[in-house]
């Protein structure tokens, strides 16, 4: 009808909503010179007062990295990265303090703005509390609720602190899920990683509150290379959340992280991510390159590992949170919602490697593409000879908004035994004019209607997120897709 705005008009009118976290914190930083060589690595290691074995680990990784090639099999295109044009270490000048009152107020206010409370009241811990490790550029600035968690024998601290205070644990588990030469970006991370979170849940302990790492990139021309190591010992369980944001800049910034999770017998880990790195502007300028290796090993029998991710940010995403199901009867899960808009490109999925008997994995992937973006699901399901009577179920759905975007599915399935069952389902759909009209006829505006329908489509995954995360993720989905009528 003539009074109705055309779809294209609506798209251009609303354009994309402002990225809320694009501000920069003005803080003096301790940086190493630009570029990468053995001296830089020694410098980072020295700044962190690391033991000799860790420096060796870094240098070995670096030497391997030099022989490796950047992977280009993913459905992502980007200008070549000049690895000598990146600053590999940037830390706020004021040193990390043990006392809350001594953390730089500028940093406290930054995390406050991001909705991450770093103050903790002296009171009994509440199950709705979340313990945060706040990582700002290359260092962890504060970890909350450490004392409370300590009473349960839980170690939750920055990676650097763990190296100092729990070197044996770190040494025992470091790189057991992701070897330094696993891939190009993992090797790079192993050489230059600066900080990250460390978490150890002792035998039989259920962590009473949710643990969370919040990553913030602030400095320009700087990459963030953090490393997270989570160990759930026999019979332990923990729920972990990860969040991230970065300033709005015209340049692309590299984020090459590693997350390793070790799940022992009868233990359970649930790792949730709401990835909201700066996605670049409407024209595709700027934004984070999120090239991340996340992997967990279900080492013991009956171990369970769940990955839940909501990916709305980053200019480029290359990320496959995976499970190695080593213990018999172990369970791996991957629930993902990946949204791409404007010129974003995401290549994400998972690997389920079944080694133990009667292992089970579930993959639910929901891709949503809008604008000129490309959204790919890439997954591998492997059943080893010994993984008898194992099962996998995969469901990969794509939702297209508009006709300039792309959705792609690249499943790779391999079974080396006859008793395992693998199921794969895939659908591609659009929001129909009928659905939009129906919502609007009930008084719901078109933008809200899209938000509702998209949230409904992703509901199966969003429901798996911790409560407050789910609320945030739902808002984020609506915002990332405003004005993208198909």
């Amino acid at each position, binding site marked *: 009808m003539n*009074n109705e705005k055309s779809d294209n008009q609506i798209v251009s009118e609303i354009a994309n909503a402002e990225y809320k976290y694009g501000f920069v914190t003005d803080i003096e930083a301790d940086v190493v010179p630009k570029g990468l060589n053995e001296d830089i690595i020694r410098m980072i290691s020295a700044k962190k007062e690391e033991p000799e074995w860790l420096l060796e680990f870094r240098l070995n990784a670096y030497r391997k990295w030099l022989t490796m090639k950047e992977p280009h099999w993913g459905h992502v295109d980007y200008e070549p990265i000049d690895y000598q044009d990146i600053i590999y270490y940037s830390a706020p000048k004021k040193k990390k303090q043990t006392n809350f009152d001594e953390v730089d107020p500028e940093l406290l206010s930054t995390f406050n703005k991001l909705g991450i409370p770093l103050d903790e009241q002296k009171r009994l811990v509440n199950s709705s509390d979340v313990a945060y490790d706040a990582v700002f550029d290359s260092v962890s600035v504060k970890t909350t609720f450490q004392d409370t968690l300590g009473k349960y024998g839980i170690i939750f601290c920055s990676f650097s602190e763990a190296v100092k205070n729990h070197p044996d644990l770190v040494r025992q588990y470091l790189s057991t899920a992701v070897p330094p030469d696993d891939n190009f970006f993992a090797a790079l991370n192993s050489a230059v990683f600066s900080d990250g979170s460390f978490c150890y849940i002792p035998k039989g302990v259920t962590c009473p509150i949710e643990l969370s790492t919040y990553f913030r990139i602030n400095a320009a021309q700087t990459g963030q290379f953090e490393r997270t190591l989570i160990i759930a010992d026999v019979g332990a369980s923990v729920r972990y959340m990860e969040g991230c944001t970065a300033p709005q800049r015209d340049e692309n910034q590299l984020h090459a992280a590693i997350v390793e999770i070790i799940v022992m017998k009868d233990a359970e880990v649930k790792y949730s991510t709401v990835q909201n790195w700066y996605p670049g502007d409407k024209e595709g300028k700027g934004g984070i390159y999120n090239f991340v290796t996340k992997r967990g090993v279900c080492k013991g029998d009956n171990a369970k590992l769940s990955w839940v991710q909501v990916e709305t940010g980053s200019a480029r995403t290359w990320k496959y949170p995976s499970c190695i199901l080593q213990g018999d009867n172990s369970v791996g899960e991957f629930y993902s919602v990946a949204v791409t808009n404007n010129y974003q490109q995401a290549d994400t999925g998972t690997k389920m490697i079944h080694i133990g008997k009667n292992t089970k994995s579930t993959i639910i992937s929901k891709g949503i593409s809008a604008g000129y973006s490309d959204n790919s699901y890439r997954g591998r399901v492997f059943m080893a000879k010994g993984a008898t009577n194992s099962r996998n179920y995969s469901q990969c759905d794509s939702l297209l908004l508009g006709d300039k975007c792309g959705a792609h599915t690249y499943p790779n399935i391999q079974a080396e035994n006859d008793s395992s069952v693998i199921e794969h389902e895939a659908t591609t759909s659009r929001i129909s004019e009928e659905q939009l009209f*129906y*919502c*609007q*006829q*009930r*008084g719901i505006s078109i933008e809200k209607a899209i938000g509702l*329908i998209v949230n*409904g489509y*992703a509901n199966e995954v969003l429901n798996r997120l911790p409560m407050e995360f789910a609320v945030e993720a739902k808002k984020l989905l609506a915002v990332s897709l405003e004005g993208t009528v198909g």
Partner: protein
Amino acid sequence: MKLLEIKNLWVSINGKQILKGLSLDINAGEVHAVMGPNGTGKSTLASVIAGRSIFNIDEGELIYKGKDLTKLSVDERAKEGIFLSFQYPVEIPGVSMVNFMRNAIDEKRKYFGQDPISMHEFINLMEEKKRLVEMKDTLTQRSVNEGFSGGEKKKNEIFQMAMLEPQLSILDETDSGLDIDALRIVSNGVNKLRTPDNSFIVITHYQRLLNYIVPDVVHVLYDGKIIKSGSKELAMELEKDGYEQFIK
């Protein structure tokens, strides 16, 4: 008082002329039945009043509460009190009826500068309206129309109508596919919403529905325009002798 005035309305879709100079006046408090053979433009009329953008208004006027309706978007019309009970309600997977209704109500409240409805108030309202259409509890916990039977979908439409308290309700073949019990329930629901301020356009093929929802005026729509209007007895005549008598 005139609630809706349609003057010489010409509507086409993809170059095909559907409505050809249709005129219709509806006063507040009246129930108008629109009858006619298939493909004469009944559903198009309903969609155009609601503002569906796939139709093109070539000529004519649509005045609602004294305002030019064509200046309002679909959702604005809904907020202003126009409700369409769909002939084929669409499914929206993953969106719960509760969430859907709450959004609809809050959007309307926002439009009139009111605060969102409280959870308490909302739950009470739902309970009340569910009873009105004898709706099973579980329905509202399910996704919008997903896996609903034909009858449940129609009940759900009337439930939504009751929740939104519209001034002008258009029932587009709400009776088709309903068994006699469901027809009674749906009709009762509608009758309870009849007030001196609210008006209804009841589109139907069958006189049967009009035994339950008694109209003030009956119109025969044929080839894109109203060719005959009369009292409820007109529906009886149609049932007995068919449309042929009025054609030509």
